[in-house]
């Protein structure tokens, strides 16, 4: 038996070029399956952590997904705003640690404009609790100053000190412009991989100021307040779109949610960002499943490649098998040899694939983060990934049994005829 194993090893080494192709195709399919699965779970993770550290998002009563859509992703528009007095009441609640009011509705070249307070930059967290970091410049200080997300700055080529004009409303390309009150870029944020990258941040007071002389979505005819005069007005907002709320004790979140829902002055609602994000992912997660289907197909194709490679080499090996037969190898030895070889190919290929993922993903991680804002996790393989690896391994081995069985049949019917 030992001799046969040694022979199998020598024989495999003799065919190392062809076999390495099979190993390569298994390695590639493992790499794709595990890599895509890793990216898929990371995309999900990134999405689920678009906001972290915020316990409750409070806004005028609407659907939870809708509230998250505009409060976190700045997509769509709020049908109703909430009063500033409600924001003040909320901030005064003893359970509340901090509040960050946000105001939406304007845009710049298709990117949403977010009116907020400096507290936003202090309390907003994403991913595993990462804070916002300035790539250049600093927080807005004056009235007409703006902080850009990384995508905005990169897409439009803005640098510190550039002047930008905001548009009234979102989406439509022919929006009225706030031409009379341009903003100066004072800061650009580092990439986060969250909607923050696509957002122009200004102060709440600035939002108030550019709308002083507007009514019903248009400038009031014959009435204009020059930019240097706005400071004479009270720039405290009357309403905001939503409030991000941090609690002193996270355990109080459901009690707080109930208090918000029962707020007397106006109909409000509070949503837990994680829950709403998960609900949203159910809708947009189809792409994720498509990725998995694609990588499964890739794996199936490369397994078919393995079978093809081994089957193609089998005809050449019929002579070798006949020699082994004449030297006392039984058909079952032949079956065993080929099954063993298949197991070896499948194992080697899978190991190479897993190692490639482990080496390559951390290597390209920083690039992916800065280019695409996707944070690749460097964690150990998830159970799903382990399952996929096991599946490739098993399928690869089963695939190799097809040629093994054929060889077994050959060795039974060929007898000692070596002429094929």
């Amino acid at each position, binding site marked *: *038996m030992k*001799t046969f194993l040694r*022979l199998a090893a*020598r*024989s495999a*080494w*003799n065919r190392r070029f062809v076999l390495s192709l099979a190993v390569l195709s298994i390695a590639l399919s493992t790499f794709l399956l595990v890599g895509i699965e890793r990216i898929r779970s990371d995309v999900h993770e990134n999405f689920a952590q678009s906001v972290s550290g915020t316990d409750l998002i409070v806004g005028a009563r609407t659907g939870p997904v809708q509230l998250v859509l505009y409060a976190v992703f700045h997509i769509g528009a709020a049908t109703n705003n909430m009063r500033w007095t409600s924001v003040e009441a909320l901030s005064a609640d003893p359970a509340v640690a901090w509040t960050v009011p946000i105001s939406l509705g304007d845009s710049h070249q298709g990117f949403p404009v977010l009116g907020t307070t400096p507290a936003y930059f202090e309390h907003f967290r994403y991913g595993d609790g990462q804070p916002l970091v300035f790539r250049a410049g600093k927080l807005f200080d004056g009235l007409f100053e703006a902080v850009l997300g990384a995508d905005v700055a990169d897409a439009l080529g803005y640098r510190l000190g550039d002047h930008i004009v905001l548009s009234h409303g979102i989406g439509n390309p022919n929006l009225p412009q706030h031409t009379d009150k341009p903003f100066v870029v004072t800061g650009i944020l580092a990439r986060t991989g969250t909607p923050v990258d696509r957002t122009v941040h200004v102060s709440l007071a600035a939002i108030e100021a550019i709308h002083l002389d507007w009514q019903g979505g248009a400038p009031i005819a014959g009435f204009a307040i020059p930019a240097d005069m706005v400071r004479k007005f009270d720039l405290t907002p009357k309403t905001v779109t939503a409030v991000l709320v941090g609690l002193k004790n996270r355990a109080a979140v459901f009690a707080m949610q109930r208090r918000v829902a029962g707020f007397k002055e106006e109909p409000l609602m509070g949503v837990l960002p994680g829950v709403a994000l998960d609900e949203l992912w159910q809708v947009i997660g189809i792409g994720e499943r498509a990725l998995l289907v694609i990588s499964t197909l890739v794996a199936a194709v490369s397994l078919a490649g393995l079978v093809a490679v081994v089957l193609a080499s089998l005809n050449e090996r019929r*002579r*070798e098998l*006949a*020699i082994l*037969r*004449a*030297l*006392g*190898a*039984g*058909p*079952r*030895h032949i079956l065993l040899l080929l099954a063993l070889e298949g197991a070896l190919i499948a194992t080697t290929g899978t190991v190479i694939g897993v190692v490639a993922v482990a080496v390559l993903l951390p290597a390209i991680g920083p690039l992916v983060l800065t280019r695409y804002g996707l944070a690749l996790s460097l964690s150990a393989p998830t159970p799903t990934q382990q399952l996929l690896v096991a599946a490739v391994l098993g399928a690869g081995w089963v695939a190799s049994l097809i040629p093994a069985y054929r060889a077994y049949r050959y060795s039974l*019917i060929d*007898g*000692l*005829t*070596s*002429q094929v």
Partner: protein
Amino acid sequence: MVTMTNIDSPQSAGRHVLEACGVRFRWPRSPANCIDLESLQVAPGEHVFIHGPSGCGKSTLLSLLAGVIVPQSGSVRLLERSWSALSTWDRDAYRVAHVGFIFQQFNLLPYLSVLENVELPCRLSRVRAANAQANGSSTRGQAEELLLEMQLEREVWNRPASMLSVGQQQRVAAARALIGLPEVVLADEPTSSLDEDRRNAFLDLLLRVCTAAHSALVFVSHDLRIAERFQRLLELPALNRAAAPERVA
């Protein structure tokens, strides 16, 4: 797994090393018998030439004699033991212990050296290894001895078998068939890929070595010109009642 020690060599006191009796064999999915043989005997140390055109079942007969396949009826006995009476595992072990085999061509495992190829039967069978060591001093010793007898120069011994000429390969195959002194050597047209000079030289060497080892040689070929060098000539078409010229073996 396969223990070869318990396949003892029966005392070959019998008059025949090989004996086929009333053998009928049909390949699976074949409509008619391929072999239908009344009787065939080979005495110890006898050199038998079996002649037949291609398609009369020569290779099938050799497979039957070697116990690679077993007949549907009748019996093939090697050293007084019927192949049909042995389990598949035991057949494989019994074969390597008592039979040397030479193919028409492609006899050698290309990834082993010449010496490793020759020693292979001793690696796979303790009987063959014991025989080799009883006769020479060691397996390696007998392998070298046989290679010298087959006139293979020392400088090729450690080369990979695939680097040898066809004539050299056939001589290595003969050395391998004879290491450990098997009782029977089966040769399936071993000279058909050689030109006339090489064929004669190969036959000289093969017959001499078989004689020296007291091994019976069953040599199958379509080439009648070499038949006179054997002690006995059998015509397979006459022997095999199932032989029909148009059938492919």
